């Protein structure tokens, strides 16, 4: 490994360590917060509510907002699938040479589309007056990081020469994630569980939608 590869690889490793420590810290801090269990007799199963929250409750037809803004819904799905696959690709990237070309091209396509949709996020944020008003520097910086992460992932999947850039950007993204908006992914599962438990036990969640 050349010095040009070692330095970015080191950045990625340091970023990964900061990421893991940060995530653990956030999880421990969240667990330390009290959780008020509901004691009222249940109307329907809270467990089934959680299942619903992670499955049908996320389906586009279950959300008026997704039915109304289906392009935004699809954009969100593609970006997030891209990010999670790119994270797996990062772990596997030292063995990039052993990946078959069709797989690399498929990954590049996914990351590339994700990066384009990430860039579109800037336009969306700036075009809407309310979003512009409420967006923070952290929002733009986080969006830039994940867009670069996906773009560099796409480039390196096609041309391994870009791997050092991908590692360096990954390291910075991972190191920043626990401090900024990107940390929302940690709370995502919590939120769905809470929704499922709370509304599930009350018999609110509707498995079929009229």
């Amino acid at each position: 490994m050349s010095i040009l590869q070692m330095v970015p690889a080191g950045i990625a490793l340091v970023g990964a360590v900061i990421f893991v420590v940060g995530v653990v810290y956030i999880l421990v801090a969240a667990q330390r917060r009290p959780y008020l269990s509901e004691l009222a007799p249940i109307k329907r199963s809270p467990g089934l509510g959680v299942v619903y929250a992670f499955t049908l409750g996320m389906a586009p037809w279950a959300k008026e907002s997704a039915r109304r803004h289906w392009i935004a819904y699809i954009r969100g799905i593609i970006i997030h699938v891209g990010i999670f696959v790119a994270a797996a690709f990062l772990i596997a990237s030292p063995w990039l040479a052993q990946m078959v070309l069709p797989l690399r091209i498929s990954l590049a396509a996914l990351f590339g589309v994700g990066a384009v949709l990430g860039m579109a996020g800037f336009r969306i944020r700036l075009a809407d007056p309310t979003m512009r008003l409420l967006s923070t520097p952290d929002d733009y910086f986080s969006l830039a990081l994940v867009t670069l992460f996906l773009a560099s992932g796409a480039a390196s999947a096609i041309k391994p020469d870009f791997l050092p850039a991908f590692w360096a950007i990954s390291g910075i993204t991972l190191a920043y994630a626990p401090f900024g908006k990107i940390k929302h992914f940690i709370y995502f599962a919590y939120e769905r569980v809470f929704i499922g438990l709370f509304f599930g036990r009350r018999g609110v969640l509707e498995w079929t939608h009229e």
Partner: protein
Amino acid sequence: MSSTVETGKDKLTVAREMLGNLVDRRVLTALEVCVRCGICTESCHYYQSNPKTEHTPYYRAEMVRRLYRRFFDPMGRAFPRWVGVKESTNEILSKLAEIAFASCTLCHRCTFACPFGVETAEIMRIMRSIATATDNAPEMLVELANAAIAKEENAELFRDIYRDQVKELEKEVQDRLGSSKARIPVEEKGARMLYVPLAGAHTIIPQAILFNAAKESWTLGMFESSNYAVFLADDIKSKRITGRVIKEAQKLNTEEIIVTECGHGYTTMRWEAPKWFGQLPFRVRSILEVVDEYVREGRIHLDSSKNGQPTTYHDSCNLGRKGGIFDEPRRVIRAAVKDFREMTPNRLESYCCGAGSGLVAEPEWMDIRMQAGKLKAEQVQHTGASLVITSCDNCRQQIGDLSEHYGLNVEASSVSELAVKALA
């Protein structure tokens, strides 16, 4: 909950302490998971009726998030502007009291529009708590909550007057049923059900007719189901007001508490009270569940030909989206009317009437709630119905006011009143 006047602390200190104490894991998640994507915007009836930034759910919640970040988030403390904290904490605080009480009815509709399920209503509830503790809560709500507590403290003063009033209502029930045996029992020990009405005959007479028709063992107590401290998010007073009814049920040794058609009254007694008192030794149900049961079991018979006018149903947010009572009122209505028409959207996606969470109690907010209810008025109009049934007294008053304000020419009524009209 102590106010700033009682503690002698400045508002900022109280806000900081309360935010630190009240943010549990669920609220922390709601605060942290939002990415400000704005997809919740159109889910809010305030925004739909008057599209402006201040009416978006994420704007409201973002104001609380800024306060939270300023106090507790490492990045917010070190670099407040980086995470959007532009205003001083005092500026945010003063904005938030108004937002929490007059620009959000805690209807939870935006939660189901959000890809993550952010519970903005829970964030607003925390903000109401803080506003109440810092003496920024609406005076009318505070007075009504205090009056409920005073009524318990002076129950003996009211007892005889109340019993006399109920005797008068009993005569109306007897006339309606054509039976001198029909009764409205008060504080009767050993009755199976303690029925908890509101402070109005319209929540006693129809239900008394139905209970008598079904030959139910029931009694009234001394207290009503409304609990204005819930709107203030003042847990100490809420517990005290709810506790009056629980003590009554224990004293009378009833098997069930039946809450009248009152959204927050039902949710508080059914779902919140066990948090304060532990598991209750009796079942809590809504009158809607009881009437539905009577119809299904054949204890009362409804004749739909007695109600011919086009009828629609408005889902109360507390009973529906927060209480899971969607089917019960619909079954009763379908049995009681010939022409039932659903609003669109309905059930889980029903819009708030615009008067929830205490808005209806404050005369100064009449203009706000008429504007916030514009969407509901349009929904009602689209059904072509001339009768709107709702299962919450706040909603009922709002639908009546909306009818007058927007010239809808509809009548607002309750499920119980409808069932009485359809009694065979």
